[in-house]
Structures are given as C-alpha cells and as structure tokens.
C-alpha cells in the first residue's frame, strides 16, 4: 500500500457507502425496535461522513458541508428523542418491542 500520498476522497466515500449499507441491512432485518433506531443513526452518520468529506476536498474555503452536517446532527438528535418516546408509548400499549407484532395498520 502506498503510504506517501494523502488519503483520496474515494476512500471516505467508500467507507460512508459501506456504513450506509450496513445501516440499511440492519433497518430491514432487526426484530428489536431499539436496534431499528440504532440503524437509522448509523445511516445518518454515513451521510454526515459524506458531507464532511466533500466539504474538505471540494469546498475547502466555504465549508458548507460542515454547516449541513451540524444541521443533520441537530435533526438526528430530535429524531432520536421523538423516536424513543414513540417506542416507549408503543411498548406501554403493546408490551413488546418486536417489530413483527407492530402490524395494527398493516392490512
């Protein structure tokens, strides 16, 4: 491996893509509702990593990617709070966290 050149942009992009795909897989396949929320956080982090990489490599002077990343972090915090509150009230009403049994509105 070449240790002399700086890290290319594509390395960060591939890392973020891998993190996003792991998050999508976990989102589809989790039975526990808390793990679904964790997978959503993984996907948001992947998007943030992309924004930061572009901000550093392409937009080095006006770092607009970092500003957007901060907004994404804010929205993610709000989403985590509301999501966990919904999860708690759901658990209180159905006494389970199994995603397969949250099917009241399905058919």
């Amino acid at each position, binding site marked *: 491996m070449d240790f002399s050149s700086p890290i290319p942009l594509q390395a960060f992009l*591939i890392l973020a*893509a891998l*993190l996003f795909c792991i998050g999508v897989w976990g989102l589809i396949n989790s039975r526990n509702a808390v*793990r679904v929320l964790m997978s959503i956080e993984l996907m948001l982090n992947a998007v943030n990593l992309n924004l930061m990489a572009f901000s550093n490599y392409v937009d080095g002077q*006006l770092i607009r990617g970092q500003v957007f990343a901060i907004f994404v972090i804010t929205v993610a915090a709000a989403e985590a709070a*509301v999501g966990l509150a919904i999860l708690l009230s759901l658990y209180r009403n159905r006494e389970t966290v199994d995603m397969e049994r949250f099917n009241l509105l399905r058919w």
Partner: protein
Amino acid sequence: MTIASTTEQICFLVLSATLVLGSLGVVLLPNIVYSAFLLGGVFLSVAGLYLLLNASFVAAAQVLVYVGAVNVLILFAIMLVNKKEDLSSIPSLLTRRLLSGAVCLGLFILLIRVAFTTAWPLPGPASIGEEATVRIGEHFFSDYLLPFELASVLLLMAMIGAIVLARRDVFASDVITGEPADQGLIEKARTPLLIERPKQSQTP
C-alpha cells in the same frame, strides 16, 4: 514520504476498521446492550474521521451530541424496555435476510461505481483547516441564519413532543378513592389498550 501523511494513513485505517467492525456488531450482535455500547464506539470513530477531515468543531459536536446525548438516550430506552421475550420465529426469515443482503450489496457496488466514475472537481481550493470554526459561525449568522433559527424551533418542538408522547397517565388524585397520589413515583396499573387478547366467548 512524510511522517505526517503516514500517521494520517494509519489513523484512517484504524478508524475505518473500528467503524466497520463496530457497525457490524451493532447490527448483528444478539445482545442489544452490547450493540448500544458498540454504537458509542462507532460514533467516536466517526468523530476521529472528522478530525482527519480538518473539522474539529463538528468532531466536538459529534462527541457531545451523539455520544453524550443520543447514545445515553438509547441506553436508557433499552433499560426501560428490556424485557426478555422469546421472539416468535417467522417463516421465510432466511430468505428475507439473503434478499436484503443482496439488495444492500448491489447498492454498495453502485455507490462504489459512482465514487470512482464521477469526475470530482479535484483538487478543490485548499482547506482552511483550523479557521473552520470561525467560518461556521459566519455562515450561521449570515446566510444560514433562517435554518439556524428553525433548528432551534425544531428542537423545542421535539422536546415538547417527546415529553407529551412518553408521559405516563398519572392523576393528581385517585379517581376512585379520592386520595392524592404522588405524581412522579406511582404509575397506575392500567390495562394496555392494544394487546391481542384471546377471543372471549360470545354470550348470547
């Protein structure tokens, strides 16, 4: 070959290995408490990658918000809902896992192809490095002022909404006996509304 770039490469390799292994652990481990702690590790390694990308302010915000708030919130939620339940097995679970794995692999290959075939406008302007915090502040109070204020309104709405959603139904005084009830400590035994009960026999 400079020492700085070598250190950068080694840091990137270590952080990305931690990131990938940690996120695989978050998704795959059967014990959800381990998953939550590994999620904290994933957030910390993402903060380290932000430091490699010359963004110290966002790295600090990541540690404060994600590790300090979101991860702790998830741990509290796990403690509140962590009832041992044996999940009923559903048919075609393996098919679903394989199919979604194939879809995710396809998405990953597509994203790799996009990353390598797109002509990024590189090299861009030189990074401003540690001036980034000042520049973020200028952005927030000039051209991104409206989203900044809207974000504060959003946080307020999320806080009130979370309190309203997660609040327990505790009456200040008991409806039946009339005795005052302690607001914070007693949760009334109430029948959950939406549980599937066994069908009661119809009385004619």
